[in-house]
C-alpha cells in the first residue's frame, strides 16, 4: 500500500475525527449526567453550521464573494465561533428545559423518544430556514498547503485540530479542576446525594447541556471551514457517528469520547483506501468508501464484544 496516501488519509481522518470528538463530548457529557442518549445533539450541530453561514452573511461574506483578509477575516471567524457556540449552547439549554426536564422521573424510554422528537423538529427548522439543497460554506480561511515529504497538509486541517484540542483541554480542566466540574461529577455519580450536599442539580444539568451545545457550535464552524457543505440532514449522519464515537470510547467518559471520535474519523478516512473488488483479489464491491459506515459499525460491534463498556469505560460492578 502507498505509504504517502496512507498518511494523507490519516491527516484527513484526524481532522474529521477531531470534529466527531467535539460532538461526541456533548453526547457523552449528557449521558454521563442523566443517562440519556441526546438524539437532538447532532441536530444542534447542524443548526450551528447554519448559524455560521448566517453570521458570515451578516459580514457580507457568501461563497460568491472574494474571501476577506486581515481584520475582517479574524473578526468574522471570531464572531462566527462565538455566535455559533453561544447560540448552540442556549439551544441546548432550551431543549433540556422544554423536552427533558419534565421527564426527569419518567420511564427510561420516554426522554429518548422526546429527544427523537426534538431532533425531528430541529431538522425541519433547518429545512425551512435554509432549504433542502446542499449549501456550500464560504471558504474564507486561507488554504495554505504545507508539504511534509509528499504528504500535503492544508492549513484548515491544522486549524481544526488545534481548535478541537484547545477546547478539549479546556473542558478537561473545567471538569477536573473547577467547582462546577466537581458538581457535575457529583451529579453524574449520584444525583440525590449531590442534591443533599447542596448541589443545584437542575442548574448543573443545564450547564452540562450548555457546554455540550457550545462544543457542537464550535465543531460546526470547524466543519464548515474544513469540509465545507451542510444542509438539514447533516446533523443526523454526523450525530450518529459522534454518538458511536462516544460509545466506542466508553460512554460517559470524556477522554473516551475524544479517542472514539478520532478513531472513527481515521477509520472512515482509511476505509477509502480499500480497493474495489472487481479490480483485484482484495477489496469490496464499489471500494471501501461505500462501505465506511458498515466498517465503522462492524469495528464498534467487535470492540464492544470484547470490551462491553467501550475502550476506556470502566467496568462498574452491577448494583443490586
Amino acid at each position, binding site marked *: 500500500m502507498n505509504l504517502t496516501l496512507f498518511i494523507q488519509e490519516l491527516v484527513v481522518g484526524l481532522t474529521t475525527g477531531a470534529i466527531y470528538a467535539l460532538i461526541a463530548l456533548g453526547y457523552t457529557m449528557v449521558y454521563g449526567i442523566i443517562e440519556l442518549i441526546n438524539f437532538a445533539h447532532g441536530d444542534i450541530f447542524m443548526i450551528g453550521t447554519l448559524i455560521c453561514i448566517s453570521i458570515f452573511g451578516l459580514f457580507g461574506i457568501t461563497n460568491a464573494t472574494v474571501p476577506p483578509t486581515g481584520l475582517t477575516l479574524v473578526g468574522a471567524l471570531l464572531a462566527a465561533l462565538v455566535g455559533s457556540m453561544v447560540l448552540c449552547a442556549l439551544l441546548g439549554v432550551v431543549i433540556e428545559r422544554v423536552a427533558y426536564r419534565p421527564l426527569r422521573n419518567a420511564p427510561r424510554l420516554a426522554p429518548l423518544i422526546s429527544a427523537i422528537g426534538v431532533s*425531528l423538529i430541529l431538522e425541519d427548522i433547518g429545512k425551512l430556514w435554509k432549504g433542502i439543497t446542499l449549501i456550500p460554506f464560504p471558504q474564507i480561511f486561507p488554504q495554505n498547503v504545507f508539504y511534509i515529504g509528499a504528504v500535503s497538509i492544508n492549513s484548515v486541517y491544522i486549524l481544526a485540530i488545534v481548535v478541537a484540542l484547545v477546547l478539549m483541554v479546556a473542558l478537561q480542566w473545567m471538569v477536573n479542576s473547577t467547582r462546577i466540574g466537581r458538581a457535575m461529577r457529583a451529579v453524574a455519580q449520584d444525583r440525590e446525594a449531590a442534591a443533599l450536599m447542596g448541589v443545584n442539580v437542575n442548574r448543573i444539568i443545564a450547564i452540562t447541556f450548555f457546554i455540550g451545545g457550545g462544543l457542537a457550535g464550535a465543531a460546526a464552524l470547524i466543519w464548515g471551514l474544513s469540509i465545507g457543505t451542510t444542509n438539514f440532514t447533516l446533523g443526523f449522519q454526523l450525530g450518529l457517528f459522534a454518538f458511536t464515537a462516544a460509545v466506542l470510547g466508553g460512554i460517559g467518559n470524556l477522554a473516551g469520547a475524544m479517542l472514539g471520535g478520532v478513531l472513527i474519523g481515521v477509520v472512515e478516512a482509511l476505509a477509502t483506501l480499500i480497493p474495489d473488488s472487481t479490480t483485484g483479489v482484495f477489496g469490496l464491491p464499489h471500494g471501501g468508501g461505500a462501505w465506511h459506515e458498515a466498517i465503522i459499525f462492524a469495528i464498534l460491534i467487535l470492540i*464492544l464484544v470484547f470490551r462491553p463498556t467501550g475502550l476506556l469505560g470502566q467496568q462498574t460492578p452491577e448494583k443490586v
Partner: protein
Amino acid sequence: MAIATTLVPTRDTRALLIKWIIGLLVPLAFFTFIWSGELIINQTLLSMLGLGSVSDISLLVEVAIFIVVFYTVVIALAGYLVAADSGHRGMIELWIDIAVFVLVPLFLVYGQGLIIGLALCAVIWAVFFLVRPRVYKALNYTPPVPLQTLRVLDAEQRIELKNRAIIGSFWFSVTLALVWLIVDLIFFFSNNLTTILLYWVAIRTLLLPVAGYFLGRLAGVVALSRTIAPKSNGENSANGGGRTTKRRRQLESLSATRVREEAQDLVPNDLPLRSSGAQRFYMILIVAFVLFYPVIDPFLFGFGTDGRLASYGDAGYYVILALGLNIVVGFAGLLDLGYVAFFAIGAYSWGIIGSTQLTNVLNLPPVDAHLLALLFWPMVLVAALVAAFFGVLLGAPTLRLRGDYLAIVTLGFGEIVPIVFLELDAYTNGTNGIVGVRSPAFFGINWSVITPTPYYYLILALIAFTIFTNLRLRDSRLGRAWIAIREDEIAAASSGVNLVTTKLFAFGMGAFFSGIAGAYHAAKLGQVSPDNFGFGDSVIYLAMVVIGGIGSIPGVIVGALAVYSINQFLLAQLDTLAADPSNVLYTVKNFIIEHGVQGFTFGNVRNLVFGIILVVIMIFRPEGLIPSARRRRELHHTEDEAVEVGALDVIPGAPGFESEVHVE
C-alpha cells in the same frame, strides 16, 4: 304471561332504562339516519329483490351480515349495560361521556373523513380529559369509589339481574323499532321510500322486540358471569377459584390502583361502558367492522375505496413491526435501535426469490410466474425464519452488553444490513432495488399489485396471527421470563431464568415478525428499494411502541396506527384541505408563506409536527397512550394508600392467611 310480567320494568329499572336507551339510541340514530346506515340497509334490500343498483350478490350478503351483527350486538349491549349498571353515576354524566366519545367521533368522521376526523377527536379528547377533573372540582362532585358498591348477589338478585338485562334489550329494541317505524313512515309519505320496502318495515317492527327479548337473555348471561356469587357448596372455594365471597375479601385488600382495575371486571359496575363485559361487545363490533370494511367503505365514505384500502394495508404491516419490536423492547426490555434490519432481510428474502432476480443471477430459466406466486406462502415463513436467524445472530454478541451499549450495537447492525444490501448489487440490484416482485396467488382470486382487497385480508390474517402469538407468548413461561429480565436481570438470573436463551429468543421472535412484515411489504409494493430501511425507520418503529404504551399489546397496535396516520395521511390531507380557498387552512398556509417561509406546505413540515407530537405525548403521557396494567401500577405506585394491616380476619399461619394478606 310470565314473560309479560318480567318485561314490566320496576321503578329502579325505569331510570336505568331511560339512561341507557337515550344514551345508545342517539348515536345509533345518528349513524342510521344522518350517515349511511339506512342507505346501506335499503340499498341492500332493494338489490336483493333485483331493484337496486348494486348487482354483486356476494357483496350484498356481506353487507347484510355486517348489518345484522351490528344491530344484534348493539341491542345485546343495551341489555348488558342496563343489567350491569350500579346506578351510582348520573344520567347527565353518562350522556356527556357518550357524546364526547361516540357522537363527536361519528360526527367528525362523517364530516371530515376518517383520518382528519379521528385526529380532531384526539385533540378534543385530550382537552376533555384536561377539563373534566376541573369541572368535577368546581361542582364539588367526587365520583364514587370503585368496589365501594361491591355486592354479593344471592340467587334472587341474580334472577333479577338477568331480568333487567332482558328488560333492557327488549325495551331498547321496542324503542328502536318505533323510532324507525315513524321515520320510515315519514319517508314514505314524502315519497322517499319505495312501497315494497314497507313490507320490510312491518316485518322489522315485529321482529325487533322478539330479537330484543332473546338478546337480552344472552346479555344477562354475560352480565351474570361477572357477578360475585355467594359461596356455593365448596365447588369452587379453592384459592383464587371462582368469584366467591372470598373474592370480595381479596379485592378489599388490594391497593387502590389494582382495585380500579379489578372494578372494571365486575358487575354491578359504576362505569359499565368501560367494564370488561362491554369490552367483549366492542370487540365483536370492531372485528365485524374490520372484517367487512372493504364492502362497507363505499357506503360510508363514497368513492376511492381502493386507494383507502391500499393505504390501510400499508398501515397493517407497521402494526406487525411494532408488535414484533414490542417483544424485544417491551417484554424483554432490550432497547433495539436497528429493528429495520430484520424488516429489510424479510423484504429482500421475498424480493430476491419472488422476482426474476435470483434466476437471472444464477443464469437459470425463469420460474413459471404462477408457481412463483404460490411460492409466496412458504416464503413468508422462510423470510421470517431467516430474519429470526439474523436476530439470534445479532443477539449473540450483545449478551454481555447492558443498556445503551446494547442499543448502539443494534443500531450498528441496523446500519450495516442496508449497506450490505445496497452495495452487493450483483444480487440486490443496488440503488435501483428489485422490481417486478410477484404478488401472492390464491386459488380463484384475482391478485396483483393493483388489487388492494386481497392484500387487505392477507394483512388482517397476518395481524391476527401476530396478535394471537404475542398474547400467547406474553402469558407463556418464556414471556414471564422476558418480563422478569426487563424488571431486574440479576434477580431473574438468580431465580433460574436462563439469560442467554431468553434474550436470544426475544431477539429471534422479534425479528421473526418483522420478517413476515418484510415479505408482505415486498409483495404489496411489487418492489424492494433500499431507501426504505434507514435508521429513521427504526426510530419510527420505536416511537410507535413507546407512544402506544410499551409492553401493552393493544397500546402498541394503537400506537402503530396513530404514528402511521400522522406520518402518512394527516399532513398530506391537510395540504389537500388547504388547497380549497374556503377552508381556514388556506388562510393559515398563505399567512405562513407571506411571512417568510417560501413554498410552505404542510407535508413539508411533517417532521416538525410529528416531532412536536412526540414531545407533547411524552411529556403528558410518558407511559404511552394505553399502558399495560403492570406498567401503570409501577408508575403510579406512589398514589396507592397503605394496606391496612390491623384488620386481619385470618390468624397468621392459618390456612388462607397468604391470600388474606396478599399485597401487590
